[in-house]
């Protein structure tokens, strides 16, 4: 029952968010700010995690192939497919749900309990639109770039492992990376990323927005925002994959 109520409230808030837009000049400034903070602020963590994941996938695959029948390029192929299809999209989205999601829920929740949202409303501003739209637009725009960056860094990480550990030759690795490459898998990844970006921003925003009380409730909202958006990402991942790939 509680879930149904939350879902209902979420859609009502989204309705309010996308009705009667705020002055373009104000929103534009906010979008630039959010691209900076949500997007570029996550570059560091994405770079580190992607490089190590690419490296580990390469090591794992290489060390698990002991049959001579399996060609060496499989390692590069596996690294590429894992990064593009799942790691740089879904796993990165889950990590961002933790980082960006808790940020958004607590920022908006804090504004709620300190009456800043009331102050916006009193000034005749649609607070939902003013606060949430720039975050959604910024994330939906910048996260696909982050995903592409993550793919690049991950595969490079794999390449460096090939270069320095010798578990697989670099020529075979590159051959695997290029093997049977379909542009569609990139489109699939970018569509997923954009959908996930919407989830990561809008769900925590909803939890922040519905905070009542004080700092304690802001903490609870932030946790709920992260957990719920993570679960919704996993479900959405399944649905999108079913729709696009099968």
């Amino acid at each position: 029952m509680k879930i149904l109520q939350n879902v209902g409230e979420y859609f009502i808030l989204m309705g309010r968010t996308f009705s009667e837009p705020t002055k373009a000049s104000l929103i534009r400034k906010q979008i630039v700010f959010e691209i900076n903070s949500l997007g570029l602020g996550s570059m560091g963590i994405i770079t580190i995690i992607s490089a190590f994941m690419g490296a580990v996938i390469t090591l794992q695959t290489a060390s698990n192939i002991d049959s001579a029948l399996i060609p060496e390029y499989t390692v590069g192929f596996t690294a590429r497919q894992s990064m593009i299809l799942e790691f740089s999209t879904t796993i990165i989205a889950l990590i961002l749900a933790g980082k960006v999601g808790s940020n958004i829920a607590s920022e908006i929740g804090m504004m709620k309990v300190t009456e800043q949202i009331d102050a916006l409303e009193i000034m005749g501003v649609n607070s939902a639109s003013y606060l949430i739209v720039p975050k959604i637009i910024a994330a939906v725009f910048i996260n696909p770039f982050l995903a592409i960056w993550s793919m690049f860094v991950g595969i490079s990480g794999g390449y460096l492992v090939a270069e320095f550990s010798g578990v697989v030759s670099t020529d075979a690795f590159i051959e695997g990376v290029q093997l049977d490459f379909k542009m569609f898998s990139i489109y699939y990844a970018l569509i997923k990323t954009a959908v996930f970006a919407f989830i990561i921003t809008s769900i925590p925003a909803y939890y922040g927005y519905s905070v009542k009380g004080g700092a304690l409730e802001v903490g609870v909202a932030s946790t709920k925002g992260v957990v719920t958006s993570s679960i919704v990402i996993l479900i959405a991942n399944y649905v999108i994959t079913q729709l696009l790939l099968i």
Partner: protein
Amino acid sequence: MIELRNIHKSFNGKQILHGIDVVYEKGKTNLIIGASGSGKSVLTKCTVGLIDPDQGQVLFDGKDFTNMKLDDKKDIRKKIGMLFQGGALFDSLTVEENIKFPLRMHASMTEKEMQARVNFCLGRVDMSGINDRYPAEISGGMQKRVGIARAISLNPSYLFCDEPNSGLDPSTAILIDNLIKELTEEFQITTIVVTHDMNSVMEIGDHVIFIHEGHKHWEGTKDTILKTTNKELSDLVFASELMKKVRSLG
């Protein structure tokens, strides 16, 4: 002038406001006093439409605000300035940007005109020169004053102040009270001030209403309040030793 008619409000089955009627006049400072939790903030929020009353009407200069279309409501809101109990400055913006915010939203001013307006408003609350600080970098009393500067930036016709001087030292508190009164008289604003502070009542109480357990229990002025025979009101007014002394002196 703002008129409240029979305002009722409950939360989760618990009734907070039991049918409040009151008229706030223009050019006067109208004070709402009452114990903590008596419903002063809820009444104020019902008046400005941040909370929808369950029953009753609010009229702004004769216009029924409660049942107005959203667009018309917005037009009234542009004329409302409000200082919230906690200040409610936007903490991601500097003091200057906070005061410019309503101007950017509703006024068609050039950057230069806005700058001049910001400096004027800051000067008015005695806070010149802190334009580039963030709310977290200034004290609570300074935040209150900046909150007032923001509330008056659009030259409001209606000014709401929820506990403008709580947490301020006595001399700053009186300064703020007098500032509110001056602005009210100078610009003929309909001003509503929520307060606990008996000093404020004595300084600026042109019109005072006393809220007790969600009822309007008493109504009068700073001159009549000291002679009250109302039990609950005297408990509030003469709670302190100082006020008891004042009473005993007649």
